[in-house]
């Protein structure tokens, strides 16, 4: 009989859960991880990673379409959706096995089972009907979240998809409606748009990518339209009439209602926390609108029970979950220099075409917070590498506190910006001011030079524009 007593027991094997488990094991704690479906969670199996694989296919396809502008010929280009999806699944599978190896290497005991709290320090797991009781000093809830279904817009896997369905698309919809222009919606919109679908995006807020800086949203909106997407902001889908092969959507915008016909609909209207069937009833774990309420050290109201990642609320990002997990574990272990997560230092990336990445406060939020600002901007058109890459569209924007020189936020749109944003994340974490960023040598020729120039521009010193 295997061990049933642990120092740390993590429920959920996503980027929050497995990273917590590995960190706990590194710190010498006897650690178990219970996962009901697949190691790596949504991120690795149905989210971040497989979508990136799909989008990479779309990106290469886009490049091929423009081969001529690079002096290349790529006649008769095309794609096989099944193979594109197959590649994406292969990537997820490879990494899923990788997580298994990492856990094994770190001597984390893994149970492939469902789990629920069963009294103080106890967890009951159910492995396909085989029940077992485990005990642990500290229990970490890391069960993540899933797609939200709005009444009338529920995904059915046939005509109306959520992200899981869309990831294993069996058909190229000619006319596609995407409801919601957050990261998930806009990435699928981007993918199917690149492969030739006629994509309409409906967003209830007044702009696409509503969490981003308004200026970036505006540029994204234009870029998407230029690529052929139809964007309807300030609009809602009132209902879906599902026929045999198509869906008629009632879309309301500005008090006017229209009906449009689509082959497929992707619903990306947010996510809800996986708080059910965890045995939270009767505990002091507090749930607020499908998310577990935690304090700055990820503690729930129930002693010895913690929650991290998506189940504990926004921002719903894999790297937030991982980081929160590490903080939670290190705090339990009593390490020094553990600090609560500062949301303003969590970068966010969206892998649409063009890419969008940001960290910290938007210009509007910074103003609202009462800062006097210095704002810098630098366009891709002024950057040598961007021109050489054939990616002249985009912008790097920086927002500084005029008084202290603190970098309050950075917002980027354009090629590869998701790989650039961490530079500003490091700067924020180290609390650099504009001076340190100005004194940093950025390599030439790179896109990162725009990050330098944007800072210089905030202080009226941009060189190349």
């Amino acid at each position: 009989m295997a061990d049933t007593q642990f120092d740390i027991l993590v429920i959920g094997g996503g980027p929050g859960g497995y990273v917590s488990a590995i960190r706990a094991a590194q710190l010498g704690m006897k650690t178990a991880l219970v996962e009901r479906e697949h190691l790596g969670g949504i991120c690795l199996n149905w989210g971040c990673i497989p979508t990136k694989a799909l989008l990479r296919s779309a990106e290469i396809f886009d490049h091929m379409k423009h081969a001529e502008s690079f002096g290349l010929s790529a006649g008769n280009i095309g794609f096989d959706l099944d193979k594109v999806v197959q590649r994406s699944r292969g990537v997820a599978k490879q990494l899923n096995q990788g997580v298994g190896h990492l856990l094994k290497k770190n001597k984390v005991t893994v149970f492939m089972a469902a789990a629920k709290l069963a009294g103080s320090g106890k967890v009951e797991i159910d492995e396909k009907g085989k029940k077992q009781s485990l005990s642990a000093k500290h229990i970490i809830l890391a069960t993540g979240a899933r797609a939200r279904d709005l009444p009338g817009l529920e995904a059915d896997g046939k005509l109306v998809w959520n992200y899981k369905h869309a990831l294993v698309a069996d058909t190229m919809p000619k006319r596609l409606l995407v409801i919601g222009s957050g990261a998930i919606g806009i990435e699928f919109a981007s993918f199917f748009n690149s492969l030739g679908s006629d994509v309409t995006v409906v967003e209830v807020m007044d702009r696409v990518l509503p969490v981003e800086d308004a200026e970036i949203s505006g540029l994204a909106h234009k870029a998407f339209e230029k690529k052929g997407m139809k964007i309807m902001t300030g609009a809602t889908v009132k209902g879906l009439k599902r026929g045999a092969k198509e869906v008629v959507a009632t879309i309301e915008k500005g008090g006017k209602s229209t009906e449009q016909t689509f082959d497929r609909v992707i619903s990306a209207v947010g996510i809800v926390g996986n708080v059910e069937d965890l045995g939270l009833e009767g505990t002091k774990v507090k749930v607020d609108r499908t998310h577990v309420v935690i304090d700055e050290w990820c503690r729930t109201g129930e002693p010895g029970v913690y929650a991290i990642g998506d189940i504990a609320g926004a921002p719903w990002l894999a790297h937030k979950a991982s980081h929160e997990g590490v903080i939670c574990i290190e705090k339990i272990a009593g390490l020094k220099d553990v600090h609560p997560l500062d949301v303003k230092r969590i970068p966010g990336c969206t892998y649409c075409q063009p890419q969008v990445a940001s960290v910290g406060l938007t210009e509007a939020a910074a103003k609202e917070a009462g800062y006097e600002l210095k704002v810098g901007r630098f366009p891709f058109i002024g950057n040598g590498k961007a021109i050489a890459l054939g990616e002249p569209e985009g912008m790097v924007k920086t927002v500084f506190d005029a008084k202290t020189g603190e970098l309050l936020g950075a917002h980027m749109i354009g090629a590869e910006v998701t790989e650039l944003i961490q530079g500003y994340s490091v700067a924020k974490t180290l609390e650099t001011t504009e001076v340190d960023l100005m004194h940093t040598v950025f390599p030439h020729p790179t896109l990162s030079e725009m990050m330098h120039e944007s800072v210089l521009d905030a202080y009226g010193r941009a060189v190349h524009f």
Partner: protein
Amino acid sequence: MAISVLMPALSPTMTEGKLATWLVAVGDKISAGDVIAEIETDKATMEVEAVDEGVLGKIIVAAGTDNVAVNAPIAVILEEGEDAGSVDMDAVAGSGGPAPKAEAKAEPAPAPAAAAPTPTAPAPKPAPAPAASSGDRVFASPLARRMAEQAGLDLGQITGSGPNGRIVKHDIEDAIAGGTGKAAPAAAPAPAAAAQAPAPSLGAAPSPDVPGLPAFDEIPNTTMRKVIAKRLTESKQFAPHFYLTVDCEIDALLNVRKELNAKLDGEKVSVNDLVIKASAQALKKVPAANASWTDEAIRIFKSVDISVAVAIEGGLITPVIRDAQNKGALDIAREMKDLASRARDGKLMPEEYQGGTFSISNLGMFGIKDFCAVINPPQGAILAIGAGEQRPVVKDGALAVATVMSCTLSVDHRVVDGAVGAEFLAAFKKLIEDPLTMLL
């Protein structure tokens, strides 16, 4: 396997020292306990004893080298059967290892001068030392520097909460807010404010603002410092101390320790561990000394929970060996090693340093002959252990030499009377001088 000898810490606060002299040469045979080198600090010169035996394979740090960091490898000892050619001594030296392989002459549980107050909540961990104390360079983020400059703050007066005590934005914000006086670890916003009158609970300290003082540096009081100040002041104000001293001959104890350690596989029992054990057994015999004063009654505790003072950065803390009367010397040694090392890392949980029934403070390793410790309230007594040193003694009417350790019991007279204290010390002395009786 070859063993790396590490630069020992001669005092809890020592971070580096001068390797003054090597007393052995490469190729010399070394037994455990041999003095192999002398280390100098600004305070003292101390001998380094070998803990392991073998042949000195390599001297890494030459005699006369200044500023050798604590725990840096200073030599390599080869075990039997190894020769210098067969061992990659640089690799051995580099590997270091978690436990220092050499120790200062007088053993573990370094304890500072006064008694050991159990810090009360809410200060489970010592606040990091103020940046000012770590030298000229103050570690602060660029943003923190600018904010401090704009607010007219002196960074040297601010305690950093970032990695390795780095001052970050948050600390400056706290310092600015600290004008209201509630930011405990964050220090005062300006030197002037730092010199405000101390809180009444710290006792009527004379005003620090005497005219004509020379220039000074101010190190803001950490939470731990304040707790120490408060509790020790309380102790001396409310607990009527008196002191009983006894000399114990420890030659037999040292022999027993040597024999014990020879039988242990790598682990060591220290003199201090045996002192803890003897105290616990003596308290079991004289439970009236394992007691505490309350206004209503005297509490005689049913278990002997011994608080052992351990010096840590910025102060001291007293991890507790619970039920010490039921524990063997090796159990105590293991527990003490773990508690002391986690204490120094600031990782003790409150239940691990709160609530002992009796304290021990050992300054023997500093060469202190005897001293009077301050009682750690609400406990009723504390035992202060001095250095074991060779002294002339009279045996059977003739002068002889013995290793003698002076132990002074500070007693709260409200709880323990002289006769009870003496009874405890007699029991303690008997156990220490005839250590085999500890087995009974």
